[in-house]
C-alpha cells in the first residue's frame, strides 16, 4: 500500500523537467524531495497533484493506477497539495474557505463543515476561529487551514511544496508537529524543500533530484555530506578566471536593511570595486533579488546607505541610479527587460539614447541590422521580442545596454541558454569588466559562480551567510552554505 510513480516524463520545449522519475512512498512515511532550483521537484509535485499532465509515466496509489488530468482528479483520488502560497481567499472567513470546493449537493452544509473543522483542529492542534476572516491568519495558520480542508476532502497523500518559506521558526515547529501526527495516522507526506536541515529533522526518507532525474534515495539518519554531493553532483571547476586589476570602490552598502514581501535583507554591508565580479549564491528567494533591486534603486532601504562611487544614492529614485551608471537586468527577460510585441529595431531605437522628436526609421533599421549582426542575434529587425529564443533575448538585452555602465546588476545571466549563447554572454560581460564595470550577478549555477566570480556572497533566508573568495572555496563548501550550514562537518 503506497504511492508509486513509474517513469514520469515531462518536457517543456527542449527542457526535460522530469526525465524518467520513479519513486515509491509507503503509508505513514514522511518523504523528503530535495534538489536545487530547477531540479524538477515542483514539476513532479504538480504532476502528482494533477496541475500538469505528464508526457508519459504512471502514478499508482494503493495499487490502483490513477488518471490525473486536473487537481480535481487528484483530490478525488486522495492526493492534496499545499502550495507555497496557500490557496486561501483572504476576504472570506475561515469556515467559508474550508467549505470551498467541498463535495456534496448544491446546498452547503455549514454545520457539518464547522464540526469537521473543529474536529480536525482538536485532533491536530490547529489554532483558529472558524468565524475569523482568513486575512487575519498568519501564513502558518493559513497552511493549517489548507491542510484541514484537504483532510476533509479525503486526502491520503499530502504534498507540501517549500512550506517553510516565509513562516517563523515557531510556526515551522508547529507544522512539523502536525506533519508527524499525520504520518502517525498513516498519511503519505511528500515534503519538498531545498533546506537540508529541514529534511534531516523531519523526514524518514528522502529522494534527491538533479536535472529532472532521481539521483538516489536515502534513509534517515541522513549525512549532510552525502546529500550535498547528490544535490550538486560533481562540479568541475574549469580553468582559472582571468584576473583583472580591481579599481576604486564602485558600490558601497552600509548596514542596509531592505524588504520586499516575505524577504528581508538585514543590515547588509558590502562593497564592490570597479572591474570586480561578485557572485550571489543562494536558493531562490533568499534575498538576492531584494538586494539587487535595492542596488538598482527599485526598492528603498528602510535603513542604511547605498553609495555609488562618491555619490550617496540612498532613497533616491530609479532614474538617479540609471544616471549614475547602474544597469539592472532581471531574470524575466521578456517580462522585465524586453517588450513583447515590439520588434528588435524598436527595442534598439528605444534604448538608443537619441532624443530627436521624430524617429528616423530608415536610419534606425539600418543600425538595427548592423547591431543584430554584431551581436549574432538570430532574428531580423522586424522580429518581435517574444519570437526570439532565450539566448537571443539575452543577446538583445546585452546589445541594448549603454556603453557607460559602471555597475551591472544581473539575475541568472545564462539560465536556460545553450552553451554557445552562455559563453557569448560571459565573453561580453568579461569585456565589460575589463573596461572597469563592476558586475554583481545572482545565479543558481555553482559552476558559473565559481568560474566567473572574484568573490561569492552566499545568501540564506535573507542574510548574507558569508562572503567567500571564489578562488579558494570549493563546491562542497558552497553547497553547505547554500543549504544554510555554516561549516563543513
Amino acid at each position, binding site marked *: 500500500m503506497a504511492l508509486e510513480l513509474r517513469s514520469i516524463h515531462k518536457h517543456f520545449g527542449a527542457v526535460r523537467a522530469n526525465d524518467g522519475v520513479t519513486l515509491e512512498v509507503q503509508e505513514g512515511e514522511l518523504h523528503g524531495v530535495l534538489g536545487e532550483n530547477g531540479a524538477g521537484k515542483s514539476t513532479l509535485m504538480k504532476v502528482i497533484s494533477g496541475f500538469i499532465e505528464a508526457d508519459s509515466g504512471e502514478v499508482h496509489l494503493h495499487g490502483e493506477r490513477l488518471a490525473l488530468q486536473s487537481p480535481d482528479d487528484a483530490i478525488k483520488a486522495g492526493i492534496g497539495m499545499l502550495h507555497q502560497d496557500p490557496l486561501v481567499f483572504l476576504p472570506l472567513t475561515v469556515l467559508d474557505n474550508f467549505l470551498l470546493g467541498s463535495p456534496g449537493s448544491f446546498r452547503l452544509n455549514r454545520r457539518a463543515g464547522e464540526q469537521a473543522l473543529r474536529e480536525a483542529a482538536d485532533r491536530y492542534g490547529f489554532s483558529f476561529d472558524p468565524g475569523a476572516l482568513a486575512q487575519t491568519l498568519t501564513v502558518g495558520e493559513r497552511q493549517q487551514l489548507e491542510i484541514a480542508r484537504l483532510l476533509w476532502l479525503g486526502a491520503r497523500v499530502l504534498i507540501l511544496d517549500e512550506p517553510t518559506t516565509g513562516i517563523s521558526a515557531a510556526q515551522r515547529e508547529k507544522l512539523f508537529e502536525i506533519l508527524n501526527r499525520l504520518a502517525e495516522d498513516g498519511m503519505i507526506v511528500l515534503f519538498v524543500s531545498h533546506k537540508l536541515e529541514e529534511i534531516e529533522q523531519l523526514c524518514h526518507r528522502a529522494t534527491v533530484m538533479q536535472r529532472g532525474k532521481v539521483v538516489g534515495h536515502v534513509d534517515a539518519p541522513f549525512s549532510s555530506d552525502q546529500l550535498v554531493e547528490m544535490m550538486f553532483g560533481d562540479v568541475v571547476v574549469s580553468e582559472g578566471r582571468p584576473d583583472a586589476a580591481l579599481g576604486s570602490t564602485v558600490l558601497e552598502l552600509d548596514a542596509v536593511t531592505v524588504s520586499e514581501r516575505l524577504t528581508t535583507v538585514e543590515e547588509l554591508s558590502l562593497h564592490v570595486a570597479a572591474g570586480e565580479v561578485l557572485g550571489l549564491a543562494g536558493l531562490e528567494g533568499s534575498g538576492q533579488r531584494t538586494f539587487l533591486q535595492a542596488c538598482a534603486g527599485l526598492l528603498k532601504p528602510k535603513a542604511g546607505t547605498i553609495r555609488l562611487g562618491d555619490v550617496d544614492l540612498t532613497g533616491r529614485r530609479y532614474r538617479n541610479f540609471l544616471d549614475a551608471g547602474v544597469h*539592472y537586468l532581471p531574470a524575466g527577460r521578456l*517580462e522585465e*527587460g524586453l*517588450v513583447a510585441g515590439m520588434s528588435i529595431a524598436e527595442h534598439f531605437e528605444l534604448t538608443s539614447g537619441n532624443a530627436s522628436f521624430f524617429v528616423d526609421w530608415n536610419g534606425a533599421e539600418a543600425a538595427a541590422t548592423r547591431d543584430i549582426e554584431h551581436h549574432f542575434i538570430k532574428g531580423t529587425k522586424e522580429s518581435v521580442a517574444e519570437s526570439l529564443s532565450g539566448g537571443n533575448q539575452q543577446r538583445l538585452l546585452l546589445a541594448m545596454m549603454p556603453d557607460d555602465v559602471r555597475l551591472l546588476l544581473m539575475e541568472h545571466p545564462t539560465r536556460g541558454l545553450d552553451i554557445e549563447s552562455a559563453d557569448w554572454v560571459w565573453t561580453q560581460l568579461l569585456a565589460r569588466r575589463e573596461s572597469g564595470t563592476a558586475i554583481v550577478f545572482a545565479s543558481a549555477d555553482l559552476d558559473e559562480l565559481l568560474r566567473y566570480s572574484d568573490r561569492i556572497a552566499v545568501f540564506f533566508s535573507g542574510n548574507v551567510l558569508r562572503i567567500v573568495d571564489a578562488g579558494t572555496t570549493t563546491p562542497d563548501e558552497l553547497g553547505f552554505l547554500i543549504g544554510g550550514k555554516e561549516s563543513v562537518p
Partner: protein
Amino acid sequence: MNDLVRRLRVPVVSVVLALAATWLLLVVVDAPPLDALWQIWNGSLGRLSKIPDTLIAWVPLTLAAAGLIVTFQAGMWNIGVEGQIVMGAIGAAFVVRELSGPPAVVIVAAFVVGALFGIFWALIPGYLRTRFGVHEIFSGVALVFVASAIAVYLIIGPWSRTGVASTSGTDLFEERYWLPTVGADEYSWLAILVAVAAVVAIAVLMRGTRYGLRLKAVGKNHHSAFLMGIPTNAYMLSAFAMCGALAGIAGTVQALGFHHKLVPSISGNYGFLAILVVLLAGFRALWTAPIALFFAAMLVGSTQLSLRLGIDSSLAGVIQGMLVLFILVVGAWQAQRTRRLARRAETATTAGGG
C-alpha cells in the same frame, strides 16, 4: 501578397460572419434583408442630401476614436471618453455664453476651453490610475455619469432657458458663434477639417515619433519600459490628456456645430461607439476614419428602417456590436492558431536536433 492576405483575413472573415448573422436576424424578424441594407445605404452615403447628416456623426466619432488610439497605445481603456466629450461641450458652451467678441476669437477660445475641460476630466482617471492603481474603466464610467449630471444641472439650473427650465437644452447660442458652414443647411467644413487633421496628427505621432514609440513600450510592457528609464506615469498621464483634449474638441463641435446649444445627451454615445471603432481598426489611427464613416453611415441610415420597413433602428447597433464581437473572436482564434503553429515548428526543430 501572402502577408496582405494574412492581414486581411480577420476583418474579412469577421465582416462576412457579421453580415450572415444580421441576415439571419432579419429573416427571423420577417424583414427583407437586402431591402434593409439598401435602406441603410440610401439613408446615409447613398444620397447626396444625406451625406451631411452622416458627417455630423462621423466628426465626433472620429475625434473620439483618434483620442482613444493614444490611450490604447498606452495600454489603457479610457472608457470615460464619453464623459470627456460632455465636459468639452460644457466648456465650449461656457465660452460662447459668457464671452463676446469677434466670432473667430470666441470660436477659437471655445475650442481651447473645450479641450481643457476634456483634459481635466481625463486626467482624473489618469491620476487615480497612476497614483492609486484605481482601474481607469471604473473611474471612467463613474465620471461619465457625473459629467452628464453636471450638464443636466446646468441646463435646468444656471443656464436654463429664460422662463422655462426644461431638459430640452439651453437657449440657442448666438448664431455668429456657430461653426461656419458652406451652404445654408450643410455641416461645418471646419469640423470636418479638425477631424481629418486630428486623425493625421495622431497617426504621425504614434508611428513616426519617439513619443509614440515610448508610449507603445509603456502600453505593451509597463515594467520593462520603466526599467528602460521611461517615466511611465508621465507618459500614461499625457496619453489621458491627449485623449481628453480630442474628446473635448468633439464636445465643442457637437455644441457649436450641431446642436448650437447644450443638451443633456450632447455626447450622443459617440465615445462608447468610438471604442468599437478603434477595436475594429485594430488600434491603427488611419483606419479609424473609414471605419467611423461606416459606423456613422449605419447609424444615420438605420433611422430609415423604422420609417420604411417598420424595423427598429437599433439594428445598426446590433450589426456594429456583432462586427466587433466577431473581430475579437476571429482575432483571438487567429492568434491562437499562430501560437500553435509556432509551437509546432519549435518542437519540430528541437526534435530535429536544432
